[in-house]
Protein backbone atom coordinates (compact mmCIF):
# COMPACT_ATOMS: atom_id res chain seq x y z
CA UNK A 1 0.00 0.00 0.00
CA UNK A 2 2.58 2.49 1.17
CA UNK A 3 4.74 1.69 -1.86
CA UNK A 4 2.07 3.00 -4.22
CA UNK A 5 0.78 5.91 -2.17
CA UNK A 6 1.36 9.22 -3.99
CA UNK A 7 4.43 11.18 -2.96
CA UNK A 8 2.58 14.23 -1.73
CA UNK A 9 2.23 16.46 1.31
CA UNK A 10 -1.33 15.17 1.70
CA UNK A 11 0.01 11.62 1.94
CA UNK A 12 2.78 12.69 4.34
CA UNK A 13 0.11 13.95 6.71
CA UNK A 14 -2.03 10.80 6.18
CA UNK A 15 0.95 8.74 7.33
CA UNK A 16 1.44 11.11 10.22
CA UNK A 17 -2.16 10.50 11.23
CA UNK A 18 -1.18 6.83 11.43
CA UNK A 19 1.68 7.78 13.74
CA UNK A 20 4.50 7.60 11.19
CA UNK A 21 6.98 10.18 9.86
CA UNK A 22 7.54 9.14 6.25
CA UNK A 23 9.80 10.58 3.56
CA UNK A 24 10.22 9.78 -0.14
CA UNK A 25 13.45 8.12 -1.22
CA UNK A 26 14.70 8.30 -4.78
CA UNK A 27 15.50 4.82 -6.08
CA UNK A 28 17.90 6.26 -8.67
CA UNK A 29 20.15 8.55 -6.65
CA UNK A 30 19.19 7.76 -3.05
CA UNK A 31 18.16 11.31 -2.13
CA UNK A 32 15.58 11.41 0.65
CA UNK A 33 12.91 14.05 0.21
CA UNK A 34 11.19 15.63 3.20
CA UNK A 35 8.61 16.91 2.44
CA UNK A 36 8.01 14.22 -0.16
CA UNK A 37 7.74 15.39 -3.76
CA UNK A 38 6.36 13.71 -6.87
CA UNK A 39 9.82 13.95 -8.47
CA UNK A 40 13.36 13.81 -7.09
CA UNK A 41 14.71 17.37 -6.99
CA UNK A 42 18.29 16.13 -7.34
CA UNK A 43 18.07 13.83 -10.39
CA UNK A 44 14.46 14.41 -11.56
CA UNK A 45 13.60 10.73 -11.41
CA UNK A 46 10.08 9.77 -10.38
CA UNK A 47 11.07 6.32 -9.23
CA UNK A 48 10.50 6.80 -5.54
CA UNK A 49 9.74 4.73 -2.45
CA UNK A 50 8.57 5.60 1.05
CA UNK A 51 10.97 5.36 3.95
CA UNK A 52 10.07 5.75 7.61
CA UNK A 53 12.10 8.12 9.78
CA UNK A 54 12.84 7.79 13.50
CA UNK A 55 10.81 10.27 15.50
CA UNK A 56 13.71 11.97 17.18
CA UNK A 57 16.33 14.55 16.43
CA UNK A 58 18.40 17.51 17.58
CA UNK A 59 17.28 21.11 17.95
CA UNK A 60 19.07 23.41 15.48
CA UNK A 61 17.46 26.75 16.33
CA UNK A 62 14.36 28.08 18.10
CA UNK A 63 12.30 31.14 18.99
CA UNK A 64 9.53 32.04 21.42
CA UNK A 65 6.57 33.55 19.60
CA UNK A 66 4.61 36.30 21.37
CA UNK A 67 2.62 37.77 18.47
CA UNK A 68 0.66 35.22 16.47
CA UNK A 69 -2.05 35.11 13.82
CA UNK A 70 -5.66 34.79 15.07
CA UNK A 71 -5.78 30.99 15.07
CA UNK A 72 -2.71 30.73 17.33
CA UNK A 73 -3.48 33.67 19.62
CA UNK A 74 -4.72 31.43 22.44
CA UNK A 75 -1.35 29.63 22.61
CA UNK A 76 1.03 32.60 23.03
CA UNK A 77 3.76 32.62 24.11
CA UNK A 78 4.87 29.39 22.48
CA UNK A 79 8.20 27.95 21.36
CA UNK A 80 8.95 26.75 17.84
CA UNK A 81 12.13 25.29 16.47
CA UNK A 82 13.77 23.44 13.62
CA UNK A 83 14.81 19.88 14.38
CA UNK A 84 17.37 17.84 12.49
CA UNK A 85 16.25 14.23 12.09
CA UNK A 86 18.32 11.34 10.77
CA UNK A 87 20.02 11.76 7.35
CA UNK A 88 20.19 15.53 7.83
CA UNK A 89 16.45 15.92 7.15
CA UNK A 90 14.73 18.69 9.04
CA UNK A 91 11.26 19.61 10.27
CA UNK A 92 9.99 22.78 11.93
CA UNK A 93 7.37 22.75 14.64
CA UNK A 94 6.25 23.73 18.12
CA UNK A 95 8.29 22.67 21.13
CA UNK A 96 6.15 21.69 24.11
CA UNK A 97 6.53 20.15 27.54
CA UNK A 98 9.59 22.16 28.54
CA UNK A 99 10.16 25.55 30.19
CA UNK A 100 11.44 28.11 27.71
CA UNK A 101 14.60 28.73 29.75
CA UNK A 102 15.55 25.07 29.44
CA UNK A 103 15.39 24.98 25.65
CA UNK A 104 18.92 24.68 24.27
CA UNK A 105 20.32 24.34 20.76
CA UNK A 106 21.60 20.81 20.31
CA UNK A 107 19.15 19.21 22.75
CA UNK A 108 17.47 15.92 21.84
CA UNK A 109 13.78 16.15 21.04
CA UNK A 110 11.18 13.67 19.93
CA UNK A 111 8.16 14.05 17.71
CA UNK A 112 4.68 13.60 19.19
CA UNK A 113 1.71 13.44 16.87
CA UNK A 114 -1.78 14.70 17.58
CA UNK A 115 -4.30 13.07 15.28
CA UNK A 116 -6.30 15.37 13.07
CA UNK A 117 -9.84 16.26 14.09
CA UNK A 118 -12.44 15.52 11.46
CA UNK A 119 -12.31 18.97 9.93
CA UNK A 120 -15.08 20.23 7.70
CA UNK A 121 -12.73 22.54 5.85
CA UNK A 122 -9.32 22.18 4.24
CA UNK A 123 -6.82 21.30 5.51
CA UNK A 124 -7.46 18.36 7.82
CA UNK A 125 -3.83 17.65 8.61
CA UNK A 126 -2.70 16.41 12.01
CA UNK A 127 -0.41 18.54 14.15
CA UNK A 128 2.90 17.27 15.41
CA UNK A 129 5.13 18.85 17.98
CA UNK A 130 8.49 18.31 19.62
CA UNK A 131 9.07 17.45 23.27
CA UNK A 132 12.17 16.59 25.30
CA UNK A 133 13.39 13.05 24.54
Amino acid at each position, binding site marked *: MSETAPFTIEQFYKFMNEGKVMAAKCKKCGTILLPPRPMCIKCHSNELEWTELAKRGKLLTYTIIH*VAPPQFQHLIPYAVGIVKLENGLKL*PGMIRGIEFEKIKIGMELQIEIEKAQQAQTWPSWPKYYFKPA
Partner: protein
Amino acid sequence: MIGKPLASIVSAGLSKFGKIEGLYARELFALAAKEAFERCPNIDPKKDVQALFIGHMGESYEHQGHTGATVADWAGLLHIPATRTECACASSGAALRAGIMAIMSGLYDIVMVGGVEKMTHRSTPEVTEFLAMASDFPFEQWHGITFPGLYALMATAHMHKYGTTEEQLAMVAVKNHHNGCLNPKAHMQREVTLEKALSSRVIAWPLKLYDCSLITDGASCLILTKPEIAKKYTDMPVHIIGSGQASDSIGIYEREQFTSLTAAKEAAKQAYKMAGLTPNDIQVAEVHDCFTIAEIIAYEDLGFCKPGEGGKLIEEGVTTLDGSLPVNTSGGLKAKGHPVGATGTAQAYEIYLQLTGQAEKRQVENVEIGLTHNVGGSGATATVHIYRRG
Protein backbone atom coordinates in the same frame (compact mmCIF):
# COMPACT_ATOMS: atom_id res chain seq x y z
CA MET B 1 35.77 46.82 -16.34
CA ILE B 2 32.60 48.53 -15.23
CA GLY B 3 29.49 46.99 -16.79
CA LYS B 4 27.47 48.76 -19.44
CA PRO B 5 24.07 50.25 -18.56
CA LEU B 6 21.16 47.81 -18.84
CA ALA B 7 18.47 50.45 -18.44
CA SER B 8 18.40 53.97 -17.03
CA ILE B 9 16.28 55.63 -14.37
CA VAL B 10 15.14 59.03 -15.62
CA SER B 11 12.62 59.70 -12.88
CA ALA B 12 11.23 58.27 -9.66
CA GLY B 13 8.33 58.81 -7.32
CA LEU B 14 7.39 57.82 -3.79
CA SER B 15 4.20 58.39 -1.86
CA LYS B 16 4.49 59.40 1.77
CA PHE B 17 5.06 56.20 3.77
CA GLY B 18 3.03 55.69 6.90
CA LYS B 19 -0.49 55.15 8.11
CA ILE B 20 -2.22 56.86 5.22
CA GLU B 21 -5.87 56.75 6.24
CA GLY B 22 -8.52 56.41 3.59
CA LEU B 23 -6.19 55.85 0.64
CA TYR B 24 -6.14 52.47 -1.04
CA ALA B 25 -3.31 50.93 -3.07
CA ARG B 26 -4.35 52.38 -6.41
CA GLU B 27 -4.62 55.87 -4.91
CA LEU B 28 -1.24 55.58 -3.20
CA PHE B 29 0.31 54.47 -6.46
CA ALA B 30 -1.19 57.47 -8.25
CA LEU B 31 0.69 59.72 -5.78
CA ALA B 32 4.00 58.03 -6.56
CA ALA B 33 3.36 58.18 -10.31
CA LYS B 34 2.42 61.86 -10.06
CA GLU B 35 5.76 62.67 -8.43
CA ALA B 36 7.65 60.73 -11.11
CA PHE B 37 5.81 62.57 -13.89
CA GLU B 38 6.40 65.98 -12.25
CA ARG B 39 10.07 65.26 -11.72
CA CYS B 40 10.54 64.56 -15.42
CA PRO B 41 8.36 66.93 -17.48
CA ASN B 42 9.98 65.77 -20.70
CA ILE B 43 8.12 62.47 -20.34
CA ASP B 44 4.58 62.58 -21.67
CA PRO B 45 2.84 59.86 -19.62
CA LYS B 46 0.17 59.18 -22.22
CA LYS B 47 2.51 59.05 -25.17
CA ASP B 48 5.83 57.82 -23.79
CA VAL B 49 5.19 55.19 -21.10
CA GLN B 50 4.72 51.93 -22.95
CA ALA B 51 4.31 49.33 -20.22
CA LEU B 52 3.94 49.02 -16.45
CA PHE B 53 5.29 46.36 -14.10
CA ILE B 54 3.98 46.57 -10.55
CA GLY B 55 5.02 44.67 -7.44
CA HIS B 56 2.18 43.88 -5.04
CA MET B 57 2.19 41.14 -2.46
CA GLY B 58 -1.32 40.38 -1.36
CA GLU B 59 -4.97 40.47 -2.30
CA SER B 60 -5.92 39.86 1.30
CA TYR B 61 -5.29 43.38 2.57
CA GLU B 62 -7.89 45.07 0.36
CA HIS B 63 -9.72 42.09 -1.09
CA GLN B 64 -8.31 43.27 -4.37
CA GLY B 65 -6.18 41.45 -6.88
CA HIS B 66 -5.44 42.23 -10.53
CA THR B 67 -3.21 45.09 -9.44
CA GLY B 68 -1.54 45.80 -12.79
CA ALA B 69 -4.60 47.08 -14.58
CA THR B 70 -5.99 48.74 -11.45
CA VAL B 71 -2.98 50.94 -10.73
CA ALA B 72 -2.30 51.65 -14.42
CA ASP B 73 -5.78 53.16 -14.63
CA TRP B 74 -5.34 55.31 -11.52
CA ALA B 75 -1.88 56.43 -12.72
CA GLY B 76 -3.44 57.71 -15.93
CA LEU B 77 -1.82 54.97 -18.00
CA LEU B 78 -4.98 53.26 -19.18
CA HIS B 79 -4.61 50.70 -21.97
CA ILE B 80 -0.86 50.08 -21.76
CA PRO B 81 0.18 46.51 -20.86
CA ALA B 82 0.22 46.39 -17.05
CA THR B 83 1.52 43.33 -15.24
CA ARG B 84 1.82 42.50 -11.57
CA THR B 85 4.92 40.72 -10.30
CA GLU B 86 4.66 38.83 -7.02
CA CYS B 87 7.65 37.63 -5.02
CA ALA B 88 6.33 38.51 -1.54
CA CYS B 89 8.41 41.38 -0.13
CA ALA B 90 10.63 41.32 -3.24
CA SER B 91 7.67 41.92 -5.54
CA SER B 92 8.89 45.28 -6.79
CA GLY B 93 12.52 44.18 -6.94
CA ALA B 94 11.12 41.65 -9.40
CA ALA B 95 9.08 44.39 -11.14
CA LEU B 96 12.26 46.40 -11.56
CA ARG B 97 13.98 43.41 -13.08
CA ALA B 98 11.00 42.74 -15.36
CA GLY B 99 11.21 46.36 -16.52
CA ILE B 100 14.94 46.08 -17.18
CA MET B 101 14.38 42.92 -19.20
CA ALA B 102 11.54 44.55 -21.12
CA ILE B 103 13.87 47.41 -22.09
CA MET B 104 16.77 45.09 -22.88
CA SER B 105 14.55 42.91 -25.07
CA GLY B 106 14.11 45.89 -27.36
CA LEU B 107 10.34 45.70 -27.09
CA TYR B 108 10.02 49.02 -25.23
CA ASP B 109 12.01 52.24 -24.93
CA ILE B 110 10.27 53.54 -21.80
CA VAL B 111 8.50 51.64 -19.03
CA MET B 112 7.29 52.36 -15.52
CA VAL B 113 8.10 49.94 -12.71
CA GLY B 114 6.87 50.22 -9.17
CA GLY B 115 5.22 48.66 -6.19
CA VAL B 116 2.46 49.24 -3.69
CA GLU B 117 0.88 47.87 -0.52
CA LYS B 118 -1.95 49.10 1.67
CA MET B 119 -1.71 47.46 5.09
CA THR B 120 -2.56 49.67 8.06
CA HIS B 121 -6.34 49.38 7.87
CA ARG B 122 -6.08 45.74 9.02
CA SER B 123 -5.41 44.51 12.58
CA THR B 124 -1.92 43.34 13.57
CA PRO B 125 -2.99 39.67 13.89
CA GLU B 126 -4.54 39.88 10.40
CA VAL B 127 -1.39 41.45 8.93
CA THR B 128 0.67 38.80 10.74
CA GLU B 129 -1.41 36.14 9.02
CA PHE B 130 -1.19 37.77 5.57
CA LEU B 131 2.58 38.23 5.82
CA ALA B 132 2.99 34.61 6.86
CA MET B 133 1.51 33.63 3.50
CA ALA B 134 4.94 34.45 2.05
CA SER B 135 6.28 31.47 3.99
CA ASP B 136 5.59 27.76 3.66
CA PHE B 137 2.01 26.86 4.60
CA PRO B 138 2.00 23.08 5.22
CA PHE B 139 4.99 23.05 7.57
CA GLU B 140 5.70 26.57 8.81
CA GLN B 141 2.37 28.41 9.01
CA TRP B 142 0.46 25.23 9.92
CA HIS B 143 2.57 24.87 13.04
CA GLY B 144 2.23 28.47 14.15
CA ILE B 145 5.51 29.84 12.82
CA THR B 146 5.05 33.51 12.07
CA PHE B 147 7.05 35.73 9.78
CA PRO B 148 8.97 37.41 12.63
CA GLY B 149 9.34 33.87 13.97
CA LEU B 150 11.25 32.77 10.88
CA TYR B 151 13.73 35.63 11.18
CA ALA B 152 13.93 34.95 14.90
CA LEU B 153 15.00 31.38 14.05
CA MET B 154 17.78 32.91 11.92
CA ALA B 155 18.71 35.35 14.68
CA THR B 156 18.98 32.60 17.30
CA ALA B 157 21.16 30.57 14.92
CA HIS B 158 23.36 33.60 14.11
CA MET B 159 23.79 34.45 17.79
CA HIS B 160 24.63 30.85 18.61
CA LYS B 161 27.13 30.42 15.75
CA TYR B 162 28.83 33.82 15.73
CA GLY B 163 28.10 35.38 19.09
CA THR B 164 26.01 38.17 17.57
CA THR B 165 24.26 40.03 20.40
CA GLU B 166 20.84 41.52 20.99
CA GLU B 167 22.64 44.86 21.45
CA GLN B 168 24.09 44.63 17.95
CA LEU B 169 20.62 43.92 16.57
CA ALA B 170 19.29 46.96 18.42
CA MET B 171 22.08 49.12 16.95
CA VAL B 172 20.58 48.53 13.49
CA ALA B 173 17.28 49.94 14.77
CA VAL B 174 19.01 52.96 16.37
CA LYS B 175 20.85 53.74 13.12
CA ASN B 176 17.85 53.34 10.85
CA HIS B 177 15.56 55.35 13.11
CA HIS B 178 18.13 58.14 13.07
CA ASN B 179 18.20 58.09 9.26
CA GLY B 180 14.40 57.98 9.14
CA CYS B 181 14.32 61.26 11.09
CA LEU B 182 16.09 62.88 8.12
CA ASN B 183 13.62 61.51 5.58
CA PRO B 184 10.37 63.49 5.42
CA LYS B 185 8.65 60.59 3.68
CA ALA B 186 9.61 58.02 6.34
CA HIS B 187 6.82 56.42 8.36
CA MET B 188 8.67 56.79 11.67
CA GLN B 189 10.52 60.03 12.31
CA ARG B 190 11.61 59.39 15.84
CA GLU B 191 15.00 58.54 17.32
CA VAL B 192 15.18 55.39 19.39
CA THR B 193 17.79 54.74 22.07
CA LEU B 194 19.57 51.44 22.48
CA GLU B 195 17.95 51.03 25.90
CA LYS B 196 14.47 51.62 24.55
CA ALA B 197 14.99 49.22 21.64
CA LEU B 198 16.33 46.54 23.97
CA SER B 199 13.50 46.92 26.47
CA SER B 200 10.67 46.93 23.93
CA ARG B 201 8.17 44.08 24.05
CA VAL B 202 9.10 40.70 22.61
CA ILE B 203 7.55 39.79 19.25
CA ALA B 204 9.44 36.55 18.59
CA TRP B 205 12.40 36.16 20.92
CA PRO B 206 15.15 37.33 20.42
CA LEU B 207 13.38 39.88 18.20
CA LYS B 208 11.59 42.70 19.96
CA LEU B 209 9.29 45.40 18.68
CA TYR B 210 12.18 47.63 17.57
CA ASP B 211 13.81 44.75 15.71
CA CYS B 212 10.80 44.57 13.38
CA SER B 213 9.98 46.73 10.38
CA LEU B 214 6.72 48.63 10.32
CA ILE B 215 3.29 47.87 8.98
CA THR B 216 3.04 50.68 6.46
CA ASP B 217 1.05 52.01 3.52
CA GLY B 218 2.99 53.27 0.54
CA ALA B 219 3.85 53.17 -3.13
CA SER B 220 6.96 53.72 -5.21
CA CYS B 221 7.86 53.89 -8.88
CA LEU B 222 10.66 54.52 -11.37
CA ILE B 223 10.60 55.48 -15.02
CA LEU B 224 13.14 53.43 -16.96
CA THR B 225 14.41 54.13 -20.45
CA LYS B 226 16.79 52.56 -22.89
CA PRO B 227 20.24 53.90 -21.80
CA GLU B 228 20.89 55.55 -25.18
CA ILE B 229 17.89 57.87 -24.86
CA ALA B 230 18.04 58.67 -21.13
CA LYS B 231 19.73 62.06 -21.62
CA LYS B 232 16.84 63.12 -23.83
CA TYR B 233 14.65 63.15 -20.74
CA THR B 234 16.98 64.22 -17.93
CA ASP B 235 20.46 65.59 -17.34
CA MET B 236 20.83 63.29 -14.37
CA PRO B 237 19.99 59.70 -15.25
CA VAL B 238 21.03 56.82 -13.05
CA HIS B 239 22.13 53.75 -14.95
CA ILE B 240 21.34 50.25 -13.71
CA ILE B 241 24.50 48.27 -14.40
CA GLY B 242 23.87 45.03 -12.53
CA SER B 243 20.78 42.95 -11.87
CA GLY B 244 20.57 39.64 -10.06
CA GLN B 245 17.75 37.46 -8.83
CA ALA B 246 17.68 34.03 -7.25
CA SER B 247 15.38 31.69 -5.34
CA ASP B 248 15.62 29.20 -2.49
CA SER B 249 13.42 26.66 -0.71
CA ILE B 250 10.17 28.23 0.47
CA GLY B 251 10.62 26.56 3.87
CA ILE B 252 13.67 27.83 5.71
CA TYR B 253 13.84 24.52 7.60
CA GLU B 254 14.99 22.73 4.42
CA ARG B 255 18.11 24.90 4.04
CA GLU B 256 21.65 23.84 4.84
CA GLN B 257 22.03 26.66 7.36
CA PHE B 258 20.01 29.54 8.81
CA THR B 259 22.68 32.20 9.17
CA SER B 260 22.72 33.49 5.60
CA LEU B 261 20.38 33.68 2.61
CA THR B 262 21.68 31.68 -0.33
CA ALA B 263 19.30 33.48 -2.73
CA ALA B 264 20.72 36.86 -1.70
CA LYS B 265 24.32 35.67 -2.06
CA GLU B 266 23.52 34.26 -5.51
CA ALA B 267 21.67 37.41 -6.65
CA ALA B 268 24.57 39.55 -5.42
CA LYS B 269 27.08 37.39 -7.29
CA GLN B 270 25.11 37.85 -10.52
CA ALA B 271 24.77 41.62 -10.04
CA TYR B 272 28.43 42.19 -9.13
CA LYS B 273 29.55 40.15 -12.12
CA MET B 274 27.29 42.03 -14.52
CA ALA B 275 28.40 45.39 -13.08
CA GLY B 276 32.07 44.40 -13.15
CA LEU B 277 32.35 45.54 -9.53
CA THR B 278 33.13 44.11 -6.11
CA PRO B 279 31.59 44.84 -2.70
CA ASN B 280 34.44 47.33 -2.10
CA ASP B 281 33.13 49.53 -4.92
CA ILE B 282 29.70 50.08 -3.31
CA GLN B 283 29.40 53.55 -1.75
CA VAL B 284 25.80 53.55 -0.53
CA ALA B 285 23.27 50.73 -0.15
CA GLU B 286 19.66 50.08 0.71
CA VAL B 287 19.28 46.59 2.17
CA HIS B 288 16.22 44.62 3.18
CA ASP B 289 16.04 45.19 6.95
CA CYS B 290 12.61 43.66 7.49
CA PHE B 291 14.14 42.67 10.82
CA THR B 292 17.37 43.93 12.34
CA ILE B 293 18.99 40.51 11.96
CA ALA B 294 18.20 40.70 8.23
CA GLU B 295 20.39 43.80 7.86
CA ILE B 296 23.27 42.08 9.66
CA ILE B 297 22.91 39.00 7.45
CA ALA B 298 22.66 41.30 4.38
CA TYR B 299 26.07 42.86 5.19
CA GLU B 300 27.53 39.36 5.09
CA ASP B 301 25.61 38.08 2.06
CA LEU B 302 26.56 41.18 0.04
CA GLY B 303 30.23 40.83 0.96
CA PHE B 304 30.43 44.07 2.97
CA CYS B 305 32.09 41.92 5.64
CA LYS B 306 32.94 38.28 6.23
CA PRO B 307 30.29 35.78 7.38
CA GLY B 308 29.71 36.26 11.08
CA GLU B 309 31.11 39.79 11.20
CA GLY B 310 27.89 41.68 10.49
CA GLY B 311 27.40 42.45 14.18
CA LYS B 312 30.88 43.92 14.35
CA LEU B 313 30.26 46.04 11.25
CA ILE B 314 27.24 47.79 12.79
CA GLU B 315 29.06 48.15 16.11
CA GLU B 316 32.01 49.87 14.41
CA GLY B 317 29.72 52.43 12.78
CA VAL B 318 30.78 51.57 9.24
CA THR B 319 27.19 51.70 7.97
CA THR B 320 26.00 54.90 9.65
CA LEU B 321 25.33 58.01 7.59
CA ASP B 322 28.86 59.30 8.21
CA GLY B 323 30.49 55.88 8.02
CA SER B 324 32.49 54.59 5.08
CA LEU B 325 29.53 52.60 3.69
CA PRO B 326 26.20 54.16 4.66
CA VAL B 327 23.40 51.59 4.62
CA ASN B 328 19.69 52.39 4.64
CA THR B 329 20.06 56.15 4.49
CA SER B 330 16.28 56.31 3.88
CA GLY B 331 15.60 54.82 7.31
CA GLY B 332 15.22 51.38 5.75
CA LEU B 333 12.23 49.15 6.18
CA LYS B 334 12.72 49.69 9.90
CA ALA B 335 11.92 53.42 10.00
CA LYS B 336 10.91 54.47 6.50
CA GLY B 337 8.44 51.59 6.64
CA HIS B 338 7.74 48.38 4.75
CA PRO B 339 4.68 48.45 2.52
CA VAL B 340 5.86 45.09 1.25
CA GLY B 341 5.09 45.35 -2.46
CA ALA B 342 6.49 48.89 -2.62
CA THR B 343 9.80 48.20 -0.91
CA GLY B 344 12.02 47.09 -3.81
CA THR B 345 11.46 50.16 -5.95
CA ALA B 346 11.38 52.40 -2.86
CA GLN B 347 14.96 51.25 -2.22
CA ALA B 348 15.83 52.13 -5.84
CA TYR B 349 14.14 55.53 -5.32
CA GLU B 350 16.48 56.26 -2.41
CA ILE B 351 19.58 55.24 -4.39
CA TYR B 352 18.33 57.39 -7.29
CA LEU B 353 18.09 60.38 -4.92
CA GLN B 354 21.52 59.69 -3.42
CA LEU B 355 23.29 59.32 -6.78
CA THR B 356 21.66 62.45 -8.18
CA GLY B 357 22.35 64.54 -5.08
CA GLN B 358 18.70 64.94 -4.12
CA ALA B 359 18.71 63.23 -0.72
CA GLU B 360 18.76 66.53 1.18
CA LYS B 361 19.57 66.16 4.89
CA ARG B 362 20.66 62.57 4.51
CA GLN B 363 22.75 63.12 1.35
CA VAL B 364 25.99 61.14 1.30
CA GLU B 365 28.73 63.21 -0.39
CA ASN B 366 30.28 62.16 -3.68
CA VAL B 367 28.53 58.89 -4.26
CA GLU B 368 28.48 57.39 -7.73
CA ILE B 369 27.80 53.70 -7.15
CA GLY B 370 24.88 52.30 -5.15
CA LEU B 371 23.23 48.95 -4.47
CA THR B 372 19.79 47.67 -3.50
CA HIS B 373 19.05 44.30 -1.87
CA ASN B 374 15.41 43.22 -1.76
CA VAL B 375 14.39 39.95 -0.11
CA GLY B 376 11.12 38.10 -0.58
CA GLY B 377 9.60 36.37 2.43
CA SER B 378 12.17 34.53 4.50
CA GLY B 379 14.69 34.50 1.67
CA ALA B 380 13.03 32.30 -0.95
CA THR B 381 13.51 35.20 -3.37
CA ALA B 382 16.17 37.89 -3.51
CA THR B 383 16.96 40.60 -6.03
CA VAL B 384 20.11 42.73 -6.04
CA HIS B 385 20.64 45.76 -8.27
CA ILE B 386 23.68 47.97 -8.80
CA TYR B 387 23.44 51.57 -9.97
CA ARG B 388 25.84 54.14 -11.39
CA ARG B 389 25.38 57.89 -11.71
CA GLY B 390 24.93 58.75 -15.39
